[in-house]
């Protein structure tokens, strides 16, 4: 642990560059009406963290309620509202936008050598839609919440609930558009605004992953938009599309909803995978093993992601033959994730590995995502799905992939690019400790839930049979540790804004184009348009560059 690849400029003389995108203009309006993708990324980062901690607080409430077999902390319908809000806020207001909207927004133009995203105004509109959707959700929470679960299952959500389904649906509809505009912006930028020489196979894998995720954002989100609009129409003017008494088929809502919601889980995980490719390559000083395999596996996940949605409905009454088709295709979609895990593992082979915080988070990601991915196959196999679906096994599975996978990757990326975003280094020791605490807290929280799942404890239960209590108590204990693990980064990252070491342009000696400019970068990103004349992750080229610069400094000095 002792030696590290961090190479900071001499702290006594180093200063944050006078002219950068933060200091270029000031005043609230310059932030609220900005077109600069970097500023929008920071606006997103702040609003995302706000919603993450609301969702996290709700998760804490759920875990407290489940300490005891009886539902005694709150009334059952309050519990239903709490877990619904936890689901809605976490899925639509944290997981879907988190890595793309913050790190993706900030870094994609820098990585491909462009001045900005293709459509800056649309990018700002995406943030305003996100905030509008978020405020609408807070309004819903304040005025009585909604208790349909984040899946809005009809006919419950259309006829048997009188809570704010309409306002939540509108909030999710608006947040959906925010996601569409982000995805659209990324696809157009990656296609049309790459620097000269930046061919597709010289793109960093971060950009590939975001390209695949953006395809899903653009093509899948509208289907949940129409599903929500139909639910809203059915609640207001009573059109009978999903209403069994009028002849409608409630399973059709499930088809339309899961047609989006399964690609949505790939929207959430793919950007995280992009971050992990970057971090593992930088901290083992090596090109990612099998670059094309990893790049194409991202696109393969995106493409196969569209054909597997009915594995969420195996026991809901879809025909047995449809179950066969969807179960088989689910097996195909699991393979690219395995490819990625093995390629990351072999990137470490013959590297020169150091263990800074981003790398610790990346190792955490690889362990937890492997478990999460494998348990997904448990649920994709129709046989075991009968017993395991709709129990805590599913809760554990998607928390392993979303919290263990995506959130770990988000924190890895946040720490890895923190010096580029703010120009300051985060404190190393305490953040490494925070990563380990998060890892331990996570496993203690969600591993017992696998066992609860095999025991058959149903999802969304406020009360449960007494023999499940021990595992639930472990899970709640783990949740408190996890809470601490997530609180620490907020503290020391805010602290680092003022007291962090000056990072300079390339503290990690990384090869990406974003590390070849000053940090925090200029508003127009590069002084002159960079020409990409080397392969991605070309560490020899980097050494060559650093020697040249040393010679220049020596000759100038």
């Amino acid at each position, binding site marked *: 642990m002792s*030696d590290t690849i961090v190479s900071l400029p001499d702290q006594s003389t180093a200063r944050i560059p006078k002219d950068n995108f933060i200091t270029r203009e000031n005043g609230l309006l310059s932030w609220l009406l900005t077109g600069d993708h970097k500023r929008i990324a920071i606006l997103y980062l702040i609003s995302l963290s706000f919603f993450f901690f609301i969702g996290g607080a709700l998760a804490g409430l759920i875990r407290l309620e489940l300490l005891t077999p009886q539902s005694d902390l709150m009334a*059952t319908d309050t*519990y*239903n509202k709490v877990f619904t809000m936890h689901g809605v806020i976490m899925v639509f207001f944290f997981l879907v936008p988190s890595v793309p909207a913050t790190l993706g927004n900030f870094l994609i133009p820098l990585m491909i050598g462009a001045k900005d995203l293709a459509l800056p105004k649309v990018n700002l509109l995406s943030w305003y839609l996100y905030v509008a959707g978020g405020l609408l959700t807070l309004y819903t929470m304040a005025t009585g919440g909604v*208790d*349909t679960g984040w*899946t809005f*299952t009809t006919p*419950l959500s259309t006829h*048997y609930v009188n809570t704010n389904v309409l306002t939540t649906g509108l909030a999710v509809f608006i947040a959906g558009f925010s996601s569409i505009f982000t995805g659209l912006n990324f696809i157009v930028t990656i296609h049309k605004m790459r620097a000269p020489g930046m061919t597709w196979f010289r793109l960093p894998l971060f950009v590939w992953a975001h390209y695949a995720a953006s395809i899903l954002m653009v093509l899948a989100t509208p289907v949940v938009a129409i599903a929500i609009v139909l639910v809203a129409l059915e609640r207001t003017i009573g059109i009978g599309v999903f209403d*069994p*008494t009028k002849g409608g088929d*409630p*399973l059709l809502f499930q088809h339309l909803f899961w047609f989006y919601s399964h690609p949505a889980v790939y929207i959430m995980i793919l950007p995280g995978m992009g971050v992990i490719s970057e971090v593992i390559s930088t901290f083992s000083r*090596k*090109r990612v*093993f*099998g670059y094309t395999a990893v790049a194409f596996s991202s696109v393969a996940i995106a493409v196969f992601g569209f054909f597997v949605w009915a594995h969420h409905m*195996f026991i*809901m*009454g879809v025909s047995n033959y449809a179950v*066969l088709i969807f179960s*088989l295709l689910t*097996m*195909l979609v699991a*393979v690219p994730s395995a490819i990625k895990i*093995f390629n990351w*593992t*072999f990137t*470490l*082979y*013959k*590297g*020169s*590995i150091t263990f800074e915080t981003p790398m610790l988070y990346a190792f955490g990601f690889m*362990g937890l995502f492997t478990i999460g991915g*494998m*348990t997904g*196959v*448990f649920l994709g*196999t129709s*046989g*075991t799905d*009968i*017993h395991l*679906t*709709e*129990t805590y096994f599913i809760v554990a599975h998607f928390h392993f992939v979303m919290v263990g996978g995506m959130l770990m990757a988000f924190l890895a990326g946040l720490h890895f690019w923190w010096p580029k975003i703010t120009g300051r280094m985060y404190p190393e020791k305490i953040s490494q400790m925070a990563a380990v605490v998060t890892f331990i807290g996570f496993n203690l929280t969600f591993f017992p839930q696998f066992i609860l799942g*095999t*025991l*058959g404890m149903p*999802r*969304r*239960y*406020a*009360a449960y049979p007494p*023999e*499940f209590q*021990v595992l639930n108590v472990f899970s709640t204990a783990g949740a408190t540790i996890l809470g601490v693990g997530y609180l620490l980064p907020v503290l020391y990252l805010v602290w680092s804004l003022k007291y962090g070491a000056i990072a300079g342009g390339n503290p990690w000696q990384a090869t990406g184009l974003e590390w070849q400019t000053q940090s925090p970068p200029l508003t127009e990103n590069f002084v002159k348009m960079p020409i990409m004349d080397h392969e991605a992750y070309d*560490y020899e080229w980097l050494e060559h560059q650093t020697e040249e610069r040393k010679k220049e400094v020596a000759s100038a000095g």
Partner: protein
Amino acid sequence: MSHISPVLWQFLVKWLTYFALFPPEASKIAPQMDALYFFMVLVSLIGLTVVTLLVISFSILYSKKRHPVAEQIEGSTLLEATWTIIPLGLFLVMFVWGALIYFRVFTPPANAMNIYVVGKQWMWKAEHPGGQHEINSLHVPSGRAVQLTLISQDVFHSFSIPAFRVKREAIPGRYTTVWFEATTPGTYHLFCTQYCGTAHSQMIGDIVVLTPEDYRKWLANSTSGASLAQNGERLFASLSCVACHNTRPDARGPSLANVYGAKLPLASGGTVTADDAYLREAILNPSQHVTQGYAPIMPTYQGQVSEEGIIALVEYIKNLNSDYRIQQTTNTTDLLPEGEARPASAPKVAPAAPERLKP
């Protein structure tokens, strides 16, 4: 911590000694599903240990201290092929094995004993053919195939018995079925696992598996006097089904004797086997299921008869293997078309439950 209060002590002892780690295997399918489950756990553990060992060993062998200069390796298509084909092979094995179990659970055997389960917001109602009605509990004999025909009166519910490894959604508008064969007698948990509103957590119950003799005893002393088919018969008369489906040669509706399981030619072409779902559809949307040679004049009973009523009618029609019962109903009710002279047979007192309708 010199003194732990007795309450806390008692709580700890009870709490640490009374917890479960794996559900009991109480049905024939349970061990088969557990076999697949443990195969997958094994594969996952192997995969996890391989990845973890590789990561740890590489981290130690190639840390910066021990291996300061990294060797750039492009990749190897051989390795890529191996870790594509091996996972794909394993996953396909799991897929086939899983699909076999899935089809075994959701294709009930012919000799299965049928029990109807109606899911209603926040309670389960089980309707035994013999007339036993249960709320939030289900008594089943061990060693015999039991098929559940599920339907919901309002929202999606899901009938889940972890001990049997069996779970099926009860959806409004259509029957869904699942079957199991309980093996070890005992009482097991019943959960509703599809979120269905406020008291979703209270929609639980017990599955009581009895030995065949205890089951017969239970049947005898918990009957409600009239079997499901008899309820159906009473409904058959009160809803004036008999006005058309009587056994007279010029009846406007087809005779329903032995209709269950038969292949019916439809007026709109094609044939359909008359199973529970067809009978229910024919009662609620008759005009789309008219048998050949009959006019589509049957009115719909949507909204006039509850799900339990439809179940009773379906059970009655399933047990109709001769016209005897319908003749009795025709004679005892004055529902014949006006111009008909009713045969002068004196109305008989409704006989005690004839054996023919024994469940």
